[in-house]
């Protein structure tokens, strides 16, 4: 069954892509930047999910996707206008679809109430247009959509698509050998057909040859089925939908009665679908009404010019949509389709991500096991270390610096750096995958808070290491929540303040000097510094008389246990917010900063390293030990004047920096390298930023320089050591430990007498 598991996994991977596509498309429709191709893409996405889900018997998912798809078909054929209400139902439907897919993947229960509610809204759209003509439906909708709780005209989908009363069909089903080769089973299909009603099956064995002429893999049998059913022709065609390439199928209506319009719709839908899925044969003529301006013609053209056989098309669930998209002429695609501009990210990545228009041919991307990539990265890391070691020993050997050896080493160095960069780029991913989750989040938070917020994203093709992406999602989610919950005012308050009722949140990403910078800005109320300060005093976070700069007040919101809301709201505001955000960003080697203007809004800036495999470090030494301090933690370095150092007790001391006393942490002693305290006057002080947001002073003997180092895990072969986050190998081949500043400063706080980072120095 592992094979099945694999297919299942592939299905859910594909689902995730389809759902992304769906949401992107719907948002484009909402923006009004959509064209017919967008609508088609959205339709195909839902259809693919449905197709795949059918193969895994995910009935709830199939049922919902089907309803969703039917509504999208109305949109596609211009019989349902994409008014704001309709789009909001569609967006909610895509959320529900995503939930159902997740529930199916994790085999957990789904939220039945939400599914039912949205299904009802969808069916209302369906029922509405099928009962009235297109234009009047729109009017009715406005009235209906305000409240989802109306009574649906039609509840069952079968009622909608199938006329009541007995239909009689004669079905001729002639499978060819491919049908069996693809592990389909005629019996299952026939049984399915019979489940629609009652009927007779006759097997035609006339083509069956003599035994000696028999090809065991050929399909010789065909069947004739006479079916009496309540279902429509569409329902029958649907059963054969996945094998239509591999069989000859004729369905004859024996009643010869007029189909109702609704049934025709389904027929048309199916025939369109079949047309789309069946290779080059498809063109505009299959979609029988001319008002629909699908770009089938260009799709057809693209296919004709493509020399490759379209063998993937018979897997409707997966390959077909992608294949069709890639045949689309990039030039023909309107440039302004995407509201979001690719920025700063490497060009080819941007194009590859922009699936709808450019669509790099499928062969240009491969899926690779992450372990292999990581192994490669490790090896290249070692290559870099060895290259440095070699060139250092060449220099030590006194080789003339203009000699060929040294020049060769310089070339080698450049090459290894390039290899390292390229290898790192393999792990890089566009932040799009994180940004894509935000619109839904915003919708949900808005619904819960009764606020109206418009989210814009910029630079979603900016690339950063996969691990950073993975760990970026949570803090970003929290910050957006916070921005809506605490930042953006309610529509009434906004109007009072002379702002448009709809708030704006902009999330942007860009590369800046070797780091990725993510900005989250809102046009909300901004930080009320007086209040923040009062709360901090109230909660005992700062002494009442503390003299703080605006910047310092803003940063108070990152203190543990700080929450400006008097009443904790459901979404954010339990006081576990921003300090957690800050800590998780710092754990990634990043920083958070705020700038805020009262009444105008706030901007949070996250600055993160592009990778977690290397780190910019400050090389310091204490005694015989060489240590690496992450540069992100370093605020400043200073050589203390003897007057600034005050002894406290037991060899501990504090240093006065700009009228503030900061305890000095003797790193060598803290780590247990020595028991005798070193004299702070002889060493170097490095001011670091710690978890509490306050400055701490670390004492070392000397600073040796700054260097990019490759991070090596200590845990793989040894285990966690307090105060040390990892190790690295220096140019001389020796191992140096990378200090964990947070752990160093926290453990110090436990042994040292408690102190307040904001206490004013007494003169």
């Amino acid at each position, binding site marked *: 069954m592992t094979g099945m598991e694999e297919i299942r996994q592939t299905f859910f991977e594909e689902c995730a892509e389809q759902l992304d596509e769906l949401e992107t498309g719907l948002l484009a429709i909402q923006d009004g930047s959509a064209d017919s191709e967008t609508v088609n893409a959205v339709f195909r996405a839902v259809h693919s999910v449905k197709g795949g889900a059918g193969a895994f018997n995910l009935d709830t998912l199939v049922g919902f996707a089907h309803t969703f798809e039917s509504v999208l078909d109305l949109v596609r054929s211009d019989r349902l206008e994409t008014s704001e209400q309709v789009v909001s139902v569609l967006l909610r439907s895509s959320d529900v679809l995503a939930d159902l897919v997740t529930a199916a993947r994790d085999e957990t229960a789904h939220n039945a109430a939400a599914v039912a509610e949205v299904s009802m809204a969808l069916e209302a759209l369906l029922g509405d247009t099928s009962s009235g003509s297109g234009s009047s439906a729109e009017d009715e909708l406005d009235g209906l959509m305000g409240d989802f709780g109306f009574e649906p005209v039609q509840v069952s989908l079968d009622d909608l698509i199938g006329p009541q009363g007995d239909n009689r069909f004669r079905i001729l089903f002639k499978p060819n050998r491919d049908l069996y080769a693809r592990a389909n089973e005629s019996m299952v299909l026939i049984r399915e057909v019979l489940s629609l009603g009652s009927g007779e099956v006759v097997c035609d064995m006339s083509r069956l040859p003599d035994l000696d002429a028999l090809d065991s893999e050929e399909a010789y049998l065909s069947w004739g089925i006479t079916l009496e059913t309540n279902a429509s022709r569409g329902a029958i065609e649907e059963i054969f939908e996945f094998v239509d390439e591999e069989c000859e199928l004729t369905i004859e209506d024996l009643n010869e009665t007029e189909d109702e319009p609704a049934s025709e719709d389904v027929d048309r839908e199916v025939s369109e679908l079949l047309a789309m899925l069946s290779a080059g044969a498809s063109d505009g003529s299959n979609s029988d009404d001319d008002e629909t301006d699908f770009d089938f013609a260009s799709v057809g053209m693209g296919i004709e010019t493509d020399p490759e056989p379209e063998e993937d098309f018979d897997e409707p669930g997966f390959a077909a949509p992608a294949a069709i998209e890639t045949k689309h002429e990039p030039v023909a695609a309107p440039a302004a389709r995407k509201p979001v501009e690719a920025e700063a990210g490497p060009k080819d990545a941007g194009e590859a991500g922009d699936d709808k228009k450019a669509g790099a041919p499928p062969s240009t991307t491969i899926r690779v096991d992450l372990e292999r990539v990581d192994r490669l990265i*490790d*090896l290249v*890391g*070692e290559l870099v*270390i060895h290259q440095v070691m070699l060139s250092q020993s060449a220099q030590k050997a006194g080789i003339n610096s203009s000699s060929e050896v040294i020049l060769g080493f310089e070339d080698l160095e450049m090459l290894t750096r390039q290899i390292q960069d390229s290898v790192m780029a393999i792990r890089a991913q566009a932040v799009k995958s994180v940004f894509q989750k935000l619109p839904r989040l915003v919708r949900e938070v808005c619904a819960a808070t009764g606020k109206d917020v418009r989210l814009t994203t910029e630079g979603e093709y900016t690339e950063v290491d996969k691990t950073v992406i993975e760990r970026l999602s949570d803090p970003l989610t929290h910050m957006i929540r916070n921005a809506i919950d605490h930042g953006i005012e309610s529509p009434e308050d906004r109007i009072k303040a002379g702002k448009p009722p709809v708030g704006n949140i902009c999330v942007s990403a860009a590369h800046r000097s070797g780091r990725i910078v993510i900005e989250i800005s809102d046009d909300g109320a901004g930080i009320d510094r007086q209040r923040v300060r009062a709360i901090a005093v109230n909660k005992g976070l700062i002494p009442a008389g503390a003299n703080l700069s605006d910047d310092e007040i803003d940063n108070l919101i990152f203190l543990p246990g700080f929450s400006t809301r008097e009443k904790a709201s459901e979404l954010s505001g339990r006081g576990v917010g921003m300090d957690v955000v800050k800590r998780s960003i710092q754990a990634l080697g990043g920083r958070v900063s705020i700038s805020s203007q009262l009444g105008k809004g706030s901007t949070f800036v996250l600055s993160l390293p592009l990778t977690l495999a290397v780190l910019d470090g400050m090389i310091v030494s204490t005694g015989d*030990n*060489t240590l690496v301090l992450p540069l992100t933690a370093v605020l400043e370095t200073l050589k203390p004047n003897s007057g600034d150092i005050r002894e406290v007790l037991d060899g501990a001391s504090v240093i006065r920096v700009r009228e503030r006393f900061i305890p000095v942490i003797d790193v060598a002693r803290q*780590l*247990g*390298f020595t028991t005798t305290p070193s004299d702070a006057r002889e060493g170097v002080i490095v001011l670091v930023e710690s978890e509490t947001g306050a400055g701490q002073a670390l004492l070392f003997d000397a600073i040796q320089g700054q260097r990019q180092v490759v991070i*090596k*895990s*200590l845990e*793989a*072969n*040894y*285990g966690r*050591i*307090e*105060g*040390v986050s990892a*190790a690295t*190998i220096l140019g001389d*081949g*020796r*191992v*140096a*430990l990378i200090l964990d500043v947070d752990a160093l400063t926290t453990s110090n706080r436990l042994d040292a007498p408690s102190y307040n980072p904001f206490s004013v120095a007494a003169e």
Partner: protein
Amino acid sequence: MNDHAQNDSHFKRELIAFRIADQEFCVDIKSVREIRGYVPATPLPKTPSYVAGVINLRGTVLPVMDLGLRMGLKAITPTPRSVIMVVKIGSQLFGLLVDAVSDIVSVTEEDIQVNPDVTNDRSRSFVSGLMALDQRMIAIIEASSILPEGLAEAA
């Protein structure tokens, strides 16, 4: 090689013998990955005294134990003959610092005397057997028992 060993009714174990101070020990050759010359280790903070530190083993950070201290004997004083034996215990790679590696010995199970009552209490917990070879007495160490406390269960 394994097949051969199983076919042989007098199954021979191959052991690497090494010296700590004036005593001889050996470990199963199968647990030893390689033997390296001594290089100074970077000390690790807050670790037991027998953890000498970490060294760079071709890009891997390798913890090294002073087997002398670990056995409750005196610390190894590094000389040019000192070596680090790289052993794999479970999924963990470890370096064992010893005074010198003497030779490889092949013994049958009959040569090994189980449950010896010699040496000090500390080292006895690591020794699984004793054997006499010519005029020498060699103690067999179970590599899995010498991991630092608290890490052993991970192996």
